[in-house]
């Protein structure tokens, strides 16, 4: 029993040291508009859009699950102080540990109570992406995935929408118009058919 206790204490100490070391200056990544020493903010705040069960299987790294912490980073209050402030920058969480714990950087503190924080580029199973969160005081009020997956299979899959992606959900799917013979879509009712592109093609 005592040995177990010792082992646990040792592990905790080791982890803390590791995180503190990793969080030391010099290794810091892109976090443009983040004030320094905001460390404890994110983890103590309830996620505004909690990841649904099963989100860990999600390869997309979508905005709604963007603030779901992954890996071991966010769980330890003791480690947090040293560990750079954006443990929420690991969306699309597959069970894998992500690279590079987020770091604080030297952005000037903003006077406004609402501010945005951009996390580092995080690699995960299907590529990499980046999350921007918006904080109001110490509450996270929004989380947006900034990048489409790059590299890997889903990167290939999303190549052709990359150009049209502007960072605002709803603009990712580009409206195309082209010389078409027919249109595939979810089964329409007669009313919906009348308003559809397919109807226009049929009557052309």
């Amino acid at each position, binding site marked *: 029993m005592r040995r177990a206790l010792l082992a646990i204490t040792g592990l905790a100490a080791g982890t803390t040291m590791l995180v503190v070391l990793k969080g030391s200056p010099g290794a810091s990544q892109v976090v443009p508009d983040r004030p320094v020493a905001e460390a404890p903010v994110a983890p103590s705040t309830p996620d505004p859009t909690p990841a649904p069960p099963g989100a860990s299987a999600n390869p*997309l790294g979508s905005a709604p699950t963007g603030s779901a912490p992954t890996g071991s980073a966010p769980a330890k209050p003791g480690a947090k102080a040293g560990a750079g402030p954006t443990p929420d920058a690991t969306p699309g969480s597959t069970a894998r540990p992500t690279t590079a714990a987020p770091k604080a950087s030297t952005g000037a503190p903003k006077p406004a109570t609402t501010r945005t924080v951009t996390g580092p580029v995080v690699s995960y199973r299907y590529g990499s992406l980046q999350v921007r969160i918006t904080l109001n005081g110490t509450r996270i009020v929004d989380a947006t995935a900034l990048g489409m997956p790059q590299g890997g299979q889903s990167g290939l899959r999303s190549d052709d929408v990359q150009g049209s992606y502007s960072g605002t*959900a709803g603009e*990712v*799917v580009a409206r195309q118009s082209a010389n*078409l*013979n027919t*249109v595939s879509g*979810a*089964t329409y009712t007669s009313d919906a058919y009348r308003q559809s*592109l397919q109807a226009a093609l049929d009557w052309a």
Partner: protein
Amino acid sequence: MASGSVRPGLRRVEHIMGTAISLDLADDLPAAMLHELAEQTFGWLREVDARFSTYRDDSEVCRFDRGELPLAEASVDLRAVLDRCADLWRETDGFFDVYATGRLDPSGYVKGWSAQVASDRLVEAGAANHCLNAGGDVRVRGRSATGEKWRIGVRHPWDPTATCLVLTGTDLAIATSGVYERGHHVVDPRRGVPAQGLRSVTVVGSDLGVADAYATAAVAMGRAGITWLDQLPDYRHAAVTDDARLLHTPTLPLPD
């Protein structure tokens, strides 16, 4: 219905199975033969509707569901459909479930299957170039009347008059399932609640019934459906998430 231009072939639309079915015969065949082929195609689809509709109390499906028709006395078609639906239930980890609503409803397979059968019959009858669109499920063969590959738009999930993707090919089955047309009617059969996460899924392959079932299953799975679709060896896909991201397999038959 058909255009009055000089292009060869025939185009016709009929409302069957509660939706519009468009047929485009592109072969330069005698008008009488094209007319006959169209008659046979729509005749078959009307017959399927009469036998498989869940809205008609006297359909074979409803009589079977009520227990009035023993399986042994069911038609070869119905037994084949039920067998295939059972296979699809296993292949999709239970997410394609003809009993998801509590009663037998094989519509998610029947529409694509019947269009596939109709297309196969057209090829056998000598109409190797055609496009059949059954309420958004598309089977194309050969080339269009202009001699080019068929160009199939995938409906934009937020705009009925726009497309979000164009596919092209000479032998494709393309089925799209989505929550935008009839509301969140795709039920996650495991939890009994409307599926969330994917707004629209398009599956491309060789068999339209299978493509339709896969698309429906993926929508029911939610975002995990994309991972599942990735594992299918013979069917490719495009999916639009609720937050408007379009993801698709790299080998989708896109225009040159």
